[in-house]
């Protein structure tokens, strides 16, 4: 577990040491949200100070979503969790009993203030002519995606492919399985996490196409050698809803319940949504979404609830031991 203190947070920390009236929050999040929450934290701290005259220091912890959830279950004193999958927060509710099991109803939009989706990253000029999921199962196309057994992001990738295959095969599960099997036969390496997978594609130069988070793809095509790769948006993908929740039991004990709640509600405000959009997360608020519409390509987005009956069922059927994913690799 890495505790990451942003520079503004450090400065605040130093300032707060002098002021008596300060409060501390720990936000346990997953890997790609580092920059997003640095900005959110600074903005929220300023708002809170203006409204309540109280100094707030928000600490961030980042890592793989599942690992972060386990840290919270094992006692990391998180006030809020902002993770990649609702499934991971469910685990905190069920195994750790740190928040009610109906936590997802506490905030609007399934407690997911921003969304993302799964898109493709291809080599410059798209030499293999990849346009949609169908192109990923063609022989000779090498696909990069992480291992869904160890990476939350990889599960979204897998489910997006499955959803596409279902739709184009008249909801036939067997055909969807054959499609996804063919896709994974084109995968030469299953990195353990999403970040490693992006690195394999961009820095190792392995693969013709990488399946990745939309926000990661934007970051990759912006930060890395400009023009080394480009984004391809498939016709259909999955609506990824990274969820947020107050870890009520711990927050109550530390007396941070109210501010933790306010912190998460801040994500839904125009300012919070604007910051999310700037960091390539799709905003929920219609007015902000409209403003950034040009940045986010339109495509058919399906939800995990509609196609798979929720995370629990998807996990059970596809990713549990002996599930569909294991069968793909059965010799």
């Amino acid at each position, binding site marked *: 577990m890495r505790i990451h203190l942003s520079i503004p947070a450090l400065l605040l920390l130093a300032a707060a040491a002098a002021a008596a009236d300060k409060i501390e929050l720990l936000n346990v999040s997953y890997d790609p949200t580092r920059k997003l929450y640095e900005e959110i934290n600074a903005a929220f701290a300023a708002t809170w100070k203006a409204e309540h005259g109280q100094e707030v220091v928000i600490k961030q912890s980042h890592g793989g979503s599942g690992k972060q959830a386990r840290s919270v279950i094992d006692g990391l004193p998180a006030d809020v969790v902002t993770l990649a999958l609702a499934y991971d927060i469910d685990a905190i509710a069920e195994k750790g009993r740190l928040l009610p099991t109906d936590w997802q109803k506490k905030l609007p939009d399934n407690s997911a203030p921003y969304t993302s989706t799964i898109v493709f990253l291809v080599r410059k000029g798209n030499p293999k002519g990849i346009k949609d999921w169908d192109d990923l199962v063609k022989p000779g196309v090498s696909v990069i995606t992480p291992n869904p057994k160890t990476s939350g992001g990889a599960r979204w990738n897998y489910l997006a492919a499955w959803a596409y295959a279902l739709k184009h095969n008249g909801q036939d599960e067997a055909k969807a399985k054959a499609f996804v099997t063919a896709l994974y036969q084109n995968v030469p390496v299953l990195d353990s996490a999403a970040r490693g997978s992006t690195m394999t594609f961009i820095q190792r130069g392995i693969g013709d196409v990488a399946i990745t988070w939309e926000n990661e793809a934007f970051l990759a095509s912006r930060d890395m050698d400009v023009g080394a790769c480009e984004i391809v948006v498939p016709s259909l993908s999955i609506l990824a809803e990274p969820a947020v929740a107050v870890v009520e039991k711990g927050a109550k004990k530390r007396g941070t319940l109210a501010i933790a709640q306010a912190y998460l509600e801040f994500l839904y405000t125009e300012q919070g949504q604007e910051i999310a959009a700037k960091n390539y997360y799709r905003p929920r608020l219609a007015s902000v979404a409209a403003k950034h519409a040009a940045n986010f390509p339109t495509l058919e987005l399906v939800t995990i609830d509609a196609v798979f009956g929720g995370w629990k069922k998807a996990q059970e059927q596809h990713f549990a031991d002996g599930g569909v994913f*294991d069968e793909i690799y059965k010799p």
Partner: protein
Amino acid sequence: MPLLLLKKTVLPGFGITLGFSVLYLSLLVLIPLAALVLKASGLTWEQFWTTVTRPQVVASYKLSFGAAFIAASINIVFGLLVAWVLVRYRFPGRKIIDALVDLPFALPTAVAGIALTALYAPNGWIGQWLVPLGIKAVFTPLGVVIALTFISLPFVVRTVQPVLEDLGKEVEEAAASLGANRWAIFRRVIFPEIWPALLTGFALAFARAVGEYGSVVFISGNLPMKTEITPLLIISQLEQYRYAEATAIAVVMLGASFVLLFAINALQRWTTRRRAM
């Protein structure tokens, strides 16, 4: 052996130092290991058995133990060579090479994994020459062996080095004056001396390599049934919040490692005793 305990030793403080050692080892090693076994015991015997004998898990044992064995074997040959060069010859830059040997100890394993993957990838410095030869290093079991060889090298060098240093030149000279050729000197004079240290080095290197995670996951490719190491499957169980199943696999790994290390120790004691006779 039990008689020895009854005999008063001349050194003072036996009771308190032994007491402390036992306490220290218990806190640091035995209690965490006991917790591991306890956690795994949450499973019924049948659940335990199906968890640890799944084909995917069995394939990973073969890879983890096999690659660790190969890596440790490579290192007893080349580690000995490195130790030999460092002890027997004086040359400029010797101190630097000596310090380099410890680098795999100091380097965070993830950094090692990323560096090795970058080197051996098809577009890497070494990889670009291997691919035309038809050798695929990254994302194959070969890559796993490379990573494990890298991280376990210092164990062999550092255990053999002091023994080589203590080995007097006089015995070799005596052997030479008695008419032994160089090979005979190595085989009959030097090798028996360093053999126990080599075995220890092998055991340490092997034990380290079996449990290695950080560097391997980058270079192995993590393909089910092909290049998944056992520690990765433990992580994949944890990702499903199946703590008991994860510890079950860990217990099997631990048991197998213990048996192997015990066997190596026994072999070592047996060969030393045989020589003493």
